[in-house]
């Protein structure tokens, strides 16, 4: 992190970008606090909070006991009463212990109280496979939260977005969940200095193309872009959209692209069935863009299995550049 460097040269890792966002918010607003397991001296399991405890002290960078339900609930209660907590689940898998506070309380309180309450809490959730940590530490469960009115659910793919989304989440009066991909933490990229907000609910065209629309978020964006590069070499022009937000989903950006290319493929790491691709596919299939479709809508999601330990099995259980490439090729050549 180098706040002095000129804006256009600033390159940070995804983890650094998130940390910078937290630091900016904490400097600007004394009600912002961090909570989570081992986010203090340990610096977080993925070293995202790193040294923030040295800058802001243990009252604002709070190590919680290993109590996910209670911890999340404390964050909800604090958010209801004047604080803006950023709560880190050590792995997104552990949010399963806190579903009740996230879904029954945080997401519903404003509604149940007829608009008389606000729960401005941000949940950060390191997600995804690829670390050899097996079935209970590698899940991609973001689709569940897409099913929950009251929440906003984001998935940054770049350091720039990781920072801007966290700042946007903090500025939002409602609960926001940010799924960060573990394999992206070390990824470097340009990050503007200072404070800026990445709009919640907006997808982004990352690569223009004409033959097929590939919608992908988080780490799958990078694999899709790499696949698109390879496909270009064989004359297939793929348009790649960074999903960014799972709730709300940016219908317009996706539909506009589908109307243009006539072909849609959704790539995601979570289990294929009932995953992010199901919603996007269904959304397109029920829209007017349906009439523009020249081919079935293809979903490339995770295997119908828990994430396996063996590294080759693990790789095989989620979309990779080569499988994306092959699938796009089949779709464009209509061999589905």
């Amino acid at each position, binding site marked *: 992190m180098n706040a002095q460097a000129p804006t256009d040269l600033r390159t940070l890792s995804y983890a650094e970008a998130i940390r910078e966002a937290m630091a900016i918010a904490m400097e600007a607003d004394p*009600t912002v*606090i961090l909570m989570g397991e081992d986010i203090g001296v340990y610096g977080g399991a993925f070293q995202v909070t790193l040294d923030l405890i040295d800058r802001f002290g243990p*009252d*604002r960078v*709070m190590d*919680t*006991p290993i*109590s996910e*339900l*209670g*911890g*999340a*609930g*404390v*964050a*909800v*209660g*604090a*958010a*209801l*009463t*004047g*604080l803006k*907590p950023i709560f880190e689940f050590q792995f997104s898998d552990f949010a399963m212990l806190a579903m*009740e*506070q996230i879904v*029954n*309380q945080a997401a519903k*309180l*404003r*509604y*149940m*109280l*007829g*608009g*008389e*309450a*606000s729960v401005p809490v941000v949940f950060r959730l390191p997600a995804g496979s690829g670390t050899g940590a097996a079935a209970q530490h590698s899940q991609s469960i973001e689709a569940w939260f897409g099913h929950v*009115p*009251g929440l906003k659910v984001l998935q940054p793919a770049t350091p720039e977005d990781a920072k801007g989304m966290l700042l946007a989440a903090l500025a*939002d*009066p*409602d609960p926001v969940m940010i799924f960060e991909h573990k394999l992206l933490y070390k990824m470097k990229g340009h990050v503007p200095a200072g404070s800026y907000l990445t709009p919640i609910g907006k997808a982004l065209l990352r690569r223009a193309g004409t033959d097929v629309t590939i919608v992908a978020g988080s780490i799958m964006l990078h694999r899709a872009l790499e696949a698109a590069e390879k496909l270009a070499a064989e004359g297939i022009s793929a348009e790649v959209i960074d999903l960014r937000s799972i709730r709300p989903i940016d219908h317009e950006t996706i539909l506009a692209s589908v109307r243009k290319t006539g072909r849609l493929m959704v790539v995601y790491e979570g289990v294929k069935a009932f995953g992010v691709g199901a919603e996007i596919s269904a959304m397109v299939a029920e829209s007017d863009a349906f009439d523009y479709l020249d081919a079935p809508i293809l979903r490339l999601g995770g295997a119908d299995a828990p994430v396996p330990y063996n590294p080759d099995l693990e790789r095989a259980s989620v979309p990779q550049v080569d499988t994306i490439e092959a699938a796009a090729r089949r779709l464009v050549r209509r061999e589905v």
Partner: protein
Amino acid sequence: MTLPDNRPFAIRHFAPAALREALKKMYLIRRFEEGAEDSYMRGLIHGTMHLSIGQEASAMATCMELTDNDKITSTHRGHGHCIAKGAEVGRMFAEFFGKETGYCHGRGGSMHIADVKTGNLGANGIVGGGLPIAVGAALSAKRLGKSDVTVCFFGDGANNEGAFHEALNMAAVWKLPVIFVCENNGYGMSTSTARSTAVTHIADRAAAYAMPGVTVDGNDFSAVAFAMHTAIARARAGEGPSLVENLTYRWRGHSKSDRNRYRSKDEIEDWMTRDPIARFRAELIAHGILDEAGAEAVAAEAIADVQAGIEFARSSTAPSISEVTRYVYAEV
């Protein structure tokens, strides 16, 4: 040398007007619950309800020293807490009747009534749901440098939820200004504490969190008020949380669907002889705070308030079904 004041704590400690107001609210709670029951019979209310008749001293005495800045979290059996903390029965009935004038604009109903202005963060449909939320509210007070306390109501049944354990532990480790008030009415739905809970008293569990725990007769206004006085002083002094267990009883079934197969008529009748309102009223009269006529006037006021409340609720308009998704997110 003055003689020691041997009167009950509440009589010594609170001004007569406050005591009169407390009696009034206890009547209000009782009449509110009866009004709810009656409205249900008349088909004015759909859904379920959990009545707190018999537990009025616990609700009222717990809230005696709380200001509007102090917070409470409540439960599915929350009407009493809500009234004790200062809510208007008219807006409560309106919520119950699903009206736009209700505390939740008709979206929440009995299990979600809240009154954020008087510090009531809301009833909760999830047993134990309020426990960590209360700890969060206490954390806010501490971090924001306020002297407010949070009172967390929960039932004996809730004490077996993991949330209880996690919440009490964090409150203790962080020395937060929160008081956990267990209304032990002997049963979680049909399951007695003996069949559900490894210890006899919920307060026996306070030691596992190195916090003071006390069990009191929850139908004795003064006993509850004194336990709360001590716990609130401790919390405001920054010394951390406490657990107060009020032994009490619900006269009615758990909810409307209760066939009452798990407790005896004798047990219920025995508890009804220990009516917390009658006891408090007698105490106020015995110590000259009120006379019979004064007490009758208080009781009559409560009846009038409840009648007016029901009238207000009935005549209020319902939300428009075009607004079914309103309030899901903040309006921008």
